[in-house]
């Protein structure tokens, strides 16, 4: 129906090792979806298979009404998927060049206009526009990664662990920024995380465990589920 991305019974893995055992999920237009899972649950594998960096063994990926299960990565990106990997930026290129690559498919004029939006959201980046990515702090790099992904105005933003490598204080900031961007730009997003603070702005939450989706629902349902509460909110919450 109104689904932007639909994944059904997806199986995938590396070489002979199967990681995903029939995962299904969907993201609707303007919806923020968080995919929770512990290390090794298969989050990155799932995202990489959506982006086309890994080939699906079985199952189907439909994006924006088109079956992209076998499409090449650059076709998927051109089709409107924005992907932010854990590292995500080019350290030996300037901030400006990083942003330009983010909008690789768009015209120079579109890119310049979009870059202004990004500099407005992230004033730090404007200040460092001529500096190399490597000279940014961990948090600024993450912001550059987000800005670079948004440059192409993607229909769907996919993020692989935006919190990785950041201090708790900065994780909070990333959550705020993503929440703000979701509201401001009406982004459709799929974020894989193991940090529960990201469910703050999630309209739908999936839980991935051992390559299978074991839960799908909103925050209330999630909090009502006993086993999940123990796993994710258990000791720390």
């Amino acid at each position, binding site marked *: 129906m109104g689904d932007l991305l639909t994944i059904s019974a997806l199986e995938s893995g590396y070489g002979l090792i199967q990681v995903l055992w029939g995962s299904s999920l969907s993201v609707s237009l303007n919806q923020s979806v968080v995919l929770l899972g512990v290390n090794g649950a298969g989050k990155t594998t799932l995202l990489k298979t959506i982006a086309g960096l890994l080939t699906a063994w079985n199952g189907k990926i439909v994006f924006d009404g088109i079956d992209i299960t076998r499409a090449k990565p650059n076709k998927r990106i051109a089709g409107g998927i924005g992907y932010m990997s854990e590292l995500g*930026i080019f*350290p030996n*290129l300037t901030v400006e060049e990083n942003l330009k690559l983010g909008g*690789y498919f768009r015209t120079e004029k579109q890119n310049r206009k979009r870059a202004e939006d990004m500099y407005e959201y992230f004033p730090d980046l404007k200040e460092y526009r001529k500096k190399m990515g490597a000279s940014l702090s961990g948090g600024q790099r993450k912001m550059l990664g987000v800005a670079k992904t948004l440059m192409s105005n993607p229909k769907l933003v996919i993020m692989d662990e935006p919190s990785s490598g950041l201090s708790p204080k900065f994780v909070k900031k990333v959550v705020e920024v993503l929440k703000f961007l979701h509201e401001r730009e009406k982004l459709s997003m799929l974020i894989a995380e193991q940090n529960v603070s990201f469910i703050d702005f999630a309209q739908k939450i999936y839980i991935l465990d051992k390559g299978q989706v074991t839960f799908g629902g909103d925050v209330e349902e999630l909090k009502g589920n006993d086993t999940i509460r123990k796993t994710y909110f258990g000791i720390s919450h």
Partner: protein
Amino acid sequence: MLKKYFPSLGVILAIVAIFIGLPHFYDNQSFLFNLMLYLALAEGLNIIYGFTGYLPFGYVGFFGAGAYGGAIAITLLHISPLLGVLVGGVVAVLTGVILIPLLRLSGAYFAIANLAASQALYLVVANPSLEKITQGPYGIDLSSVYNANAGYFAMLGVLVFAMALVAYLRNSNFGLSLLAIKEDRVTASLAGVNVIRARSIAWMLSAFVAGMSGAVFGWYTAVFYPSTVFSLDVSVFTIVFVLFGGIASVAGPLIGALILYSMYNFIGISTPQYFQLFYGLLIVLLVLFLPDGVVSLLKKGKVYVP
């Protein structure tokens, strides 16, 4: 939009002016020819190494393939030498196409495989049983079409072409996408870059420059042997020049080749014993203090390097 090309254009015009003007004051044409040859090879290598990060130790393979491709076309098909230069470039590109699978390797593995490929090509060309086509180890004689002045300007043409290519890469989105591939292939493909196609194009452009340079060299020298045009010295010299000057700009490889090749000629031939010492020392110092080449000094001083 064309404005961003102006600095690169300035460099190209300066080089052209030098090589048109200098023969009026300095009559060692063969030195000037070889200097242009290395400038062009350095820019050609810059395309593949500077922008995509693949270090082609067998770069001389394209040079030799071009020299032989051009020469065989001239002697057997009786085409004009200028057309032969183009044929040389195309033969090198075809060689490059055959070697495209090597681009799946990375780092030292690519460098070694490419080196082996160039030597395999050498052994094929030098094989006596191919004497009817390649003259085997006995070398090629092009003295019937020898024309030093025409060869000199053909070399200048190839050099301008090579510099223009690098100027385009330096300022275009395509060049930026190649730099992204060098940085991180996966992240580049996630930005929407068609990694396989982009690096193959860079590889073939690089081969084209080396092939045309080889063909002009064959024409200008008139007599050459497989061991001349497949000599590993060509690869090593070119790589050192590029590293010395600095990669991924138009000016870097030019500066490297101008300084080091001139030095090689003025000290290297008269007093080879000191030259080796001096050269070695220079390279050690370079690696220790200026790993990004001479132009990195300018970049540190916030000077734009075209």
